[in-house]
């Protein structure tokens, strides 16, 4: 058994242990903190599966932004429920039944996964064959923005709908107001320092990730998530604030990604072989063009979703 295998087994054990902690921990807040650590460990597993793009996404969105969202919520719930009167678990028989069901599902899945052919069927050669047409070097970016760009566009629409859904939970009187704390609500030296030092570098790294995403691991999702994190840090420090949900600029940026995507896609009918096709030779510049707007939209959508529905009237 090589060292790498021992490390793999150790990592596997650690991931499962932390996952079990998030399920069985008594305190919801502790479980959420466990979940963030779990996400980071999981991105190491993704690296071991040679899926660096996914590892970056998992670390940035699956663990990072989701972590901010969940920790914020768990903190607020802890404040809201003084006594926390609903901690009672269901009866032992139900838990036993659930445990049996879950063990059964796990065993069946593990059995089936092991029985999958190895080496398995793959679209990698197909993806490689068409890579030249896209002018890209990163096949995953090619799948996301060319071969299956329709999925990606629709997933951007999912993000827009999530924003509408979250906003729909506002109290009526706050419609047109803003979420989160106003600027300068809680002045704090440490956070302000971080919010001043980190963003220049973070923005650089975010844009770099999108740019190299054409050829190397990275892309609009990962870069956008980093930009989103920078904005969230400045908001937490009270240096910036969420704009009003009725702000025309905010809405423009929210829909810019999917709108440009749809526009370029439909233009393919006139200028290329069909909808969501790129004209020969223009694939790469068009993909980068779409990615630029997608990054912008993601960078704004993620913080908007984390901030939740508007909670206060806008200060004029």
């Amino acid at each position, binding site marked *: 058994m090589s060292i790498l295998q021992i490390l793999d087994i150790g990592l596997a054990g650690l991931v499962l242990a932390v996952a079990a902690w998030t399920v069985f921990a008594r305190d919801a807040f502790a479980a959420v903190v466990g979940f963030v650590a779990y996400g980071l460990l999981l991105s190491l597993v993704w690296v071991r*599966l040679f899926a660096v793009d996914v590892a970056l996404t998992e670390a940035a969105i699956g663990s990072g932004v989701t972590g901010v969202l969940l920790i914020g919520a768990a903190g607020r719930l802890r404040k809201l429920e003084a006594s926390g009167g609903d901690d009672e678990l269901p009866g032992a028989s139900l838990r036993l039944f*659930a445990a049996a069901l879950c063990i059964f599902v796990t065993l069946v899945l593990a059995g089936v996964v092991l029985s999958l052919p190895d080496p398995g069927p793959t679209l990698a050669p197909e993806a490689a064959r068409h890579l030249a047409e896209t002018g890209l070097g990163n096949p995953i970016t090619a799948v996301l923005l060319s071969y299956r760009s329709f999925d990606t566009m629709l997933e951007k629409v999912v993000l827009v709908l999530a924003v509408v859904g*979250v906003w729909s939970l506002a109290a009526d009187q706050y419609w047109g107001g803003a979420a989160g704390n106003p600027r300068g609500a809680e002045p704090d030296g440490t956070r302000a320092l971080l919010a001043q030092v980190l963003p220049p570098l973070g923005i650089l790294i975010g844009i770099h990730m999108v740019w190299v995403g054409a050829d190397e691991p990275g892309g609009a999702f990962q870069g956008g998530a980093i930009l989103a994190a920078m904005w969230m840090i400045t908001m937490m420090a009270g240096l910036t604030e969420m704009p009003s949900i009725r702000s025309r600029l905010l809405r423009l940026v929210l829909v810019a990604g999917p709108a440009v995507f749809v526009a370029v896609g439909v233009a393919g009918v006139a200028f290329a072989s069909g909808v969501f096709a790129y004209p020969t030779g223009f694939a790469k510049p068009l993909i980068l063009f779409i990615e630029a707007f997608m990054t912008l939209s993601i960078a704004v959508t993620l913080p908007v979703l984390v901030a939740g529905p508007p909670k206060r009237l806008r200060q004029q």
Partner: protein
Amino acid sequence: MTAATLAGFIGSALVGLGLYGLITDPQPIRKILGFNLIGSGVFLLFGIVARKGAAAGFAADPVPQAMVITGIVVAFSASALAIALVLRLYEVAGPVSLRSEHTSNKAEK
């Protein structure tokens, strides 16, 4: 044992663990955590499928990887909507567990 096989076990176990949390825990936020665990288990299974599809000079099949990236973003959006619902429910009704509240069959008074 290859990393992919090991990941297969982790993925399956995560689905089971998450499902257990989703079924048994009455607190909505814990149910959301359970859903996220199942989700990441499913994504890992995609990862194994991708790894087994290594070919044409790629260390893993890019198509399932792209699907996972899409899936992670969708899972985040779902968590955001669910959290917003939970917080709104607490605001309007106070602490509520999804188990104690019953399907109201009775006429509204």
